[in-house]
């Protein structure tokens, strides 16, 4: 007697109450959380109409403007900075760790934390307009050394990429067996810009690297990979000065791209390329890099081994790459330099080059940072 009807009443009452509350929430969500359409003005000239309520980063991505971000919008990398002149509201606690007082004065915000809720006016570096996202397919993978792989990605037929030799792209590491989060990681392109449907990267296996482990152990030919780019201000300046390139590790990639590009364009500037490695097994594409001299008349390739293996038959340069640079230079007045490698290597190279008289503003580098 008690049981059935009382049970039904209580179930009914609870259900009714929950449904009413749920409806209130849904209605509230539709009205309160609906920010309507917002106008976002980019660099004072491009006007985007964006449906409000989402983060600036993802809204811009939808409009095909890609702000570099390594963590994919979780506020844990601090890379996706943009200047917001109006419409962003107060700084959020999640942004503050990343923003320096100077940046605060310039209204620099983390675009993955700022939500579009009203009309906004933002400023981004001009070159980001040419950044596009591509769904590429892995064309080929080959081992360059025991820990560096060359991966060639083919763009869809309808798309091409325009970049300057030396620039980098970001590749999206999907969720895979060892990692259940998506991350973006940046790598310099080693391909020639004239090959507009190919992106070639040289990727060194990093112990504990989320993306490099994936590339080295899980990526197969034919896999689909999302890449966006190009980014960066590391590219050949148009002058008549002699060129010195110095690289180490996976720093070969942008230099290779620059050299191939010069060869293709028949550039006659004098180029010396120093590549520092430990032993012969660590040299990236030694034959290919040396063979560029057939197409680039004033080019010298100078690999430098710091610690050759006992059975390496090596009659080239040994010691630190910086010492080899000093030995080969005769004055730096007419030189500009392009460096790519670890911060330690770059600092050491800058020291040597400035001692030789190369003006500091003519030393360009990709500091892996």
């Amino acid at each position: 007697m008690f049981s059935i009807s009382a049970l039904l009443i209580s179930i009914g009452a609870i259900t009714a109450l929950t449904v009413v509350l749920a409806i209130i929430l849904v209605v509230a969500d539709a009205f309160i959380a609906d920010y309507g359409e917002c106008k976002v003005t980019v660099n004072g000239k491009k006007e985007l109409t964006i449906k409000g309520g989402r983060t600036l980063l993802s809204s811009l991505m939808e409009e095909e403007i890609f702000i570099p971000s390594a963590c994919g919008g979780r506020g844990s990398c601090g890379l996706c900075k943009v200047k917001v002149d109006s419409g962003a509201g107060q700084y959020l606690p999640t942004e503050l760790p990343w923003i320096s007082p100077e940046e605060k004065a310039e209204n620099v915000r983390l675009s993955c934390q700022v939500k579009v809720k009203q009309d906004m006016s933002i400023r981004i570096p001009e070159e980001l307009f040419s950044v596009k996202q591509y769904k590429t397919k892995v064309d080929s993978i080959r081992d360059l050394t025991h820990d560096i792989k060359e991966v060639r990605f083919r763009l869809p037929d309808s798309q091409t990429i325009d970049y300057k030799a030396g620039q980098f792209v970001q590749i999206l590491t999907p969720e895979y067996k060892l990692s259940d989060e998506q991350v973006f990681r940046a790598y310099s392109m080693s391909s020639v810009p004239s090959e507009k449907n190919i992106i070639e990267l040289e990727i060194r296996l990093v112990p504990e690297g989320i993306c490099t482990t994936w590339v080295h152990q899980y990526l197969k030919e034919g896999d689909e990979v999302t890449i966006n780019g190009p980014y960066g201000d590391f590219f050949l300046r148009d002058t008549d000065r002699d060129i010195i390139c110095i690289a180490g590790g996976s720093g070969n990639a942008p230099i290779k791209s620059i050299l191939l590009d010069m060869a293709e364009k028949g550039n006659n500037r004098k180029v010396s390329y120093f590549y520092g490695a430990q032993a012969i097994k660590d040299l990236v594409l030694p034959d290919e890099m040396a063979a560029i001299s057939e197409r680039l008349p004033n080019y010298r390739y100078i690999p430098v081994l710091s610690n050759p293996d006992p059975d390496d038959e090596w009659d080239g340069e040994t010691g630190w790459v910086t010492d080899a640079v000093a030995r080969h230079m005769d004055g730096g007045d007419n030189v500009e330099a392009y460096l790519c490698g670890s911060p330690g290597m770059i600092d050491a190279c800058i020291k040597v080059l400035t001692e030789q008289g190369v003006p500091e503003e003519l030393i360009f580098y990709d500091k892996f940072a």
Partner: protein
Amino acid sequence: MKENPAMNKVYENMKPGVLSLHGFLGDDKRDIELIIDHDAAELESLGVTAVEIAAGLEKLRDKALEGLGDYISLEGGFSVKANSIRGKLPCPFGHKGLYRKNVVSLSGPGIDSVLMFTDLGIHLVREHGFFQGKGSPFRLEPAEIAGILKKLSGDV
């Protein structure tokens, strides 16, 4: 005790794949506070502070960086290597600043294969007394690292 939203964010950041491939906690099931407390107790019994250890690690890292990616020999049969990788990492505790990805590998007598630590790891030890969870690839056992630093004190 995981109620504090700030702390929840820290646990989130320390999960595998968020900031690093295997995360900061390894297979350690203890709370972060407990890991820190246990290691702090161990340090106290050893008579060293986390700040001293961090300073030692930092010197070791600077020494290793001189090798531009190759191994450098130290006294007592130890050798260090620093591998610099593109990009920077933030502190999982939400501290301001970004840390270079310098992975320092240390090998020598008494070390099983190789000990690894990073710039971020040094920061975690210094500012948070956090030596990472057991099973994390960058876990430093306070007793072990303190012993090694003592042996190397002349060199680094």
